[in-house]
């Protein structure tokens, strides 16, 4: 049997590669996140908030940044999601946070996405959200959901 050693026994860590080339696979990390949180025993209300935040983040990375990485840190009483991409960055964060503001292309909108609710929903469903972004370099979003 392999030796089980963990750096920090209190934090459960997962990393998901969000594939930018495949729009239909967007949302898979959210589904897996749901399953993991259910097994750990988080209340449904918290699972809902985490899975919506994760879903919106995945969709954003696929639409705007041709993919990225979603990381999940699970602790006893909180979940932290870190989304990192190397896309175009966000020019005006304040504007991007406004409901209904979107820079999504038409072909994405015709699929029902790009309604300008992604970032606002991520903020609404989490207890804390930080955006670090640099135009031309990429974006890192850190969200926390407390239980």
């Amino acid at each position, binding site marked *: *049997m*392999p030796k*089980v050693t*963990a750096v920090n*026994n*209190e*934090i*459960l860590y997962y990393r998901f590669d969000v594939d930018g080339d495949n729009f239909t696979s967007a949302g898979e990390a959210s589904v897996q996140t*749901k399953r*993991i949180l*259910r*097994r*750990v*025993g*988080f*209340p*449904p209300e918290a*699972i*809902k908030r985490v*899975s*919506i935040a994760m879903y919106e983040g995945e969709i954003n990375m696929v639409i705007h940044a041709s993919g990225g990485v979603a990381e999940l840190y*699970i*602790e*006893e*009483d909180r979940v932290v999601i870190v989304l990192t991409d190397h896309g175009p960055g966000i020019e005006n964060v304040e504007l991007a946070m406004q409901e209904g503001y979107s820079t999504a292309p038409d072909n994405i909108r015709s699929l029902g996405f790009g309604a300008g609710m992604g970032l606002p929903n991520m903020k609404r469903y989490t207890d804390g959200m930080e955006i670090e972004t640099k135009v031309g370099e990429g974006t890192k979003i850190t969200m926390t959901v407390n239980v």
Partner: protein
Amino acid sequence: MDYQHSVIMDVGKCKGCTHCLNRCPTEAIRIRDGHAVINANRCIDCGECIRMCPHNAKKASFDKLASLPEGKYKIALPAPTLFGQFENLDDPDYLVEGLLKLGFDDVYEVACAAELVTEYTRRYLKQRGISLPVISSACPVVVRLVKLRFPTLSENLLPILPPVEIAGMLAKEKAKKEHPELKDEDIFTVFISPCPAKVSYVKNNLSGEKSNVDMVVSVSDVYFELLGVMRKTDLPNASSKTGMVGLSWASSGGEASSLLNDRYLAADGIENVIRVLEDIEIESHPNLTFVELNACAGGCVGGVMTVENPYICRVRLRNIKRYLPVSLNHPPQDDPERGVPDRYTMTEPEEYGHVSRYDESRKEAIRMMKDVNAVFATLPELDCGSCGSPTCRAFAEDVVRGTANYEDCIAVMRDKLREMEKGTKQ
């Protein structure tokens, strides 16, 4: 009292293959000492393992028609599905007559009670303060699944007794009215069921009180008996008392569509049912009022103890329903209440745990999950089942829980052997 299941194992016939292991939707089965072992705490009586077993090592525990007690006033409670089993049956009266010929003193169709449940459900949905969406409680597998794996949705379950229970109750009342000389213990109700889950329902008093159903026999058992006595040439004296609504309960969507409410969802097949419940639990669903869930594909017509293919059965029921009135059973006209009468309401039977959780404590569950992930990372992800667990992940969980040995994985053993081989060559 421990939960009594309706799936029985014949250890002698079980070869320890992986058919049931792979199919069990709640991962309740393991192969230990060369044969399948069912974890009673996880089993939901869906019957998938009975369906899948190529060696007939799993059976449903039904009573036999031959063991009907002598000297009692026997009432048959046929499930709507029974009516769809017969070729060329276009008039339900023949079937009712056939049951009387088999020795039953009376027949009370479960479809009649289903029509009452439909009307009471419409009333229930109009009440304020109920948890939406309301989830149908007619399929006992779904009820057990909700209580075991989705306990937060327990309050969404329709608190009305399932049609079979109400049929048993009303059949007994009718018998006493027509034959005042009969005592309670003289009346004996026999449900003709398409699935073993109803056996569990009766055995475990899942309605909260002692069931009004005294015995459960299978549709397939009764089918062959009926074939011998049903004759088209003999005009039936008896008559069926159900309308279209009652018979429509046999197929998926029948119960929900009868509610005359567009905001419903009907899903069938246990895997689909689980997926829908997962979504409802985290509220990622459109505004739904009613959710009908059936563990068997196609609904009750897909029950494991039926004879006919569910889709053929559905077509036949459609032919029978064609010339029936919409509904023949209604709450009494002078019913003073607008709600659901107490006697048709389910009382909460027992509390269940949350079986999909690793541990009661989240801290402990996180530790366990880390251990499981570490073990899982070393496994081949073949999900071959040779170790006796359904998937590599389930195996990792079993190893961490201490119910399986890491060396039971053949891929791990193969690598070990190769290492040893290398060692001896050098």
